């Protein structure tokens, strides 16, 4: 028998969560923005001369929009909200959150220039003359290509960062896995494709996005497998952390919302659509989006419940 009694217990020792809904929402929207940045840029890079529907072009604007909502959630999580400029008074190379703060500074101008260049016709005509001149400059083929490369690269960094923010915490055995960066990046790409499918893109774009989403879901399943393999073949501490998702209090929600609802059903649904069975335009993308949010929500909550048992 080994029994530990904590005298004068503090709330943090009772494993109360210090990060609430704000952090998973921020990680989800950050990944979503990264996915949109990558998908819209890759489309330009793969087919610079190709026609894109007006809706697809306008979707570039979704990246700064969802990222701003995510940043607002992160800001709400701060205990001292008006001290946020302090993130920009230091650069701490070992702190992923410091990297994130500075990456976000690069994201906004890049994504804004790229999205301005994507405005055509009546949308560009509505711009103020100076902004229209910037849009014309950003739409020039050589500049557009560079902007697309930059947008895709910064989007990739942003997507990986959302996972590294957690995986840098070696004190939380559930998060301490190098797989989280690629997993959140892949999930960000998949949820971005799902969100874009909710809009009225043309049929060719719709098929392209569905096909891409199918591939990303397969990658996500493989990465989740590696994540669990890493946990369950690790130390006793790792296995206890993995047990939170495999047979523990988070099992039902994780397997119900993430694995079944967010991955398995969309995987079979989209494979059926590839074979010509058309289903609801809303159903599968919504499941993928809910699954992506649930993945972050559950991992953030379960990770805070995992520890070294250092008493």
């Amino acid at each position, binding site marked *: *028998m*080994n*029994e*530990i*009694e*904590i*005298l*004068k*217990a*503090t*709330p*943090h*020792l009772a494993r109360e969560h*210090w*990060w609430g809904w704000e952090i998973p929402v921020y990680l989800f929207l950050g990944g979503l923005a990264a996915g949109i940045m990558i998908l819209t840029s890759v489309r330009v890079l793969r087919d610079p001369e190709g026609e894109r529907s007006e809706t697809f072009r306008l979707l570039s604007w979704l990246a700064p929009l969802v990222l701003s909502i995510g940043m607002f959630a992160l800001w709400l*999580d*701060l*205990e*001292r909200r008006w*001290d*946020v400029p*302090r*993130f920009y*008074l*230091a650069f*701490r190379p*070992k*702190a*992923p*959150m*410091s990297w994130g*703060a500075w990456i976000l500074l690069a994201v906004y101008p890049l994504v804004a220039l790229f999205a301005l260049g994507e405005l055509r016709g009546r949308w560009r005509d509505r711009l103020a003359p100076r902004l229209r001149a910037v849009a014309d400059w950003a739409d020039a083929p050589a500049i557009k290509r560079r902007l697309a490369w930059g947008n895709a690269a910064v989007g990739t960094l942003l997507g990986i960062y959302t996972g590294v923010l957690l995986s*840098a*915490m*070696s*004190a*939380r055995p559930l998060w301490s896995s190098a797989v989280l960066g690629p997993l959140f990046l892949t999930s960000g790409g998949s949820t971005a494709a799902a969100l874009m499918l909710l809009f009225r893109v043309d049929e060719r774009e719709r098929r392209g996005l569905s096909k891409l989403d199918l591939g990303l879901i397969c990658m996500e399943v493989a990465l989740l497998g590696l994540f669990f393999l890493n946990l369950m073949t690790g*130390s006793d*501490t790792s296995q206890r952390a993995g047990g939170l998702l495999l047979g523990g209090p988070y099992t039902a929600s994780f397997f119900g919302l993430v694995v079944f609802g967010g991955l398995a059903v969309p995987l079979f649904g989209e494979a059926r659509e590839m074979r010509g069975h058309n289903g609801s335009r809303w159903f599968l993308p919504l499941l993928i989006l809910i699954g992506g949010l649930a993945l972050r929500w559950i991992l953030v909550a379960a*990770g*805070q419940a995992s*520890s*070294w*048992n*250092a*008493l």
Partner: protein
Amino acid sequence: MEPRYVMVLDTRRCVACSACVIVCKTENDVPEGGFRDWVVSETRGRFPALSTENRSLRCNHCAFAPCIDNCPTGASHRGPGGTVQIDRVKCTGCKNCISACPYDARFVHPRGFIDKCTFCMHRKGAYTACQTVCPTECIHFGDANDPGSEVSRLLATRDHKVVAPEAGTRPRVHYLV
């Protein structure tokens, strides 16, 4: 030589009275619900062959401190004698350091910054508050770089351990066993 402050606690003397917890709250004006140190009582074995070990726990002022590495503003920093301190002005309350601490030694102060044990550095490296009130004199504090200090002597002559050494942070709070 720069001092290297460590704390040495004798588990054979500790009776888990929690005087160290209460005096810390008074000395440092620790708010309701928060604690900079706490006491655990671990019972091992099978009845009737049971043994109990009492430990007074706190921030370990680790030599490899993940809280310092993960702090995005530099609020968590290396203080005098290698201790880990928090600059309340620089702290934004992002709670990254709470996630990074394997010992769950940090909490959110109602005024928005993160709080934890400071080894009573406002006393300039003299006796800590918990040490002064311990009725069994089980808490020792001093400079491990000074071979003549009491902590150096205890660490040289008694068996000792740290909590969760597998976390790899090289804690500076040692427990005599």
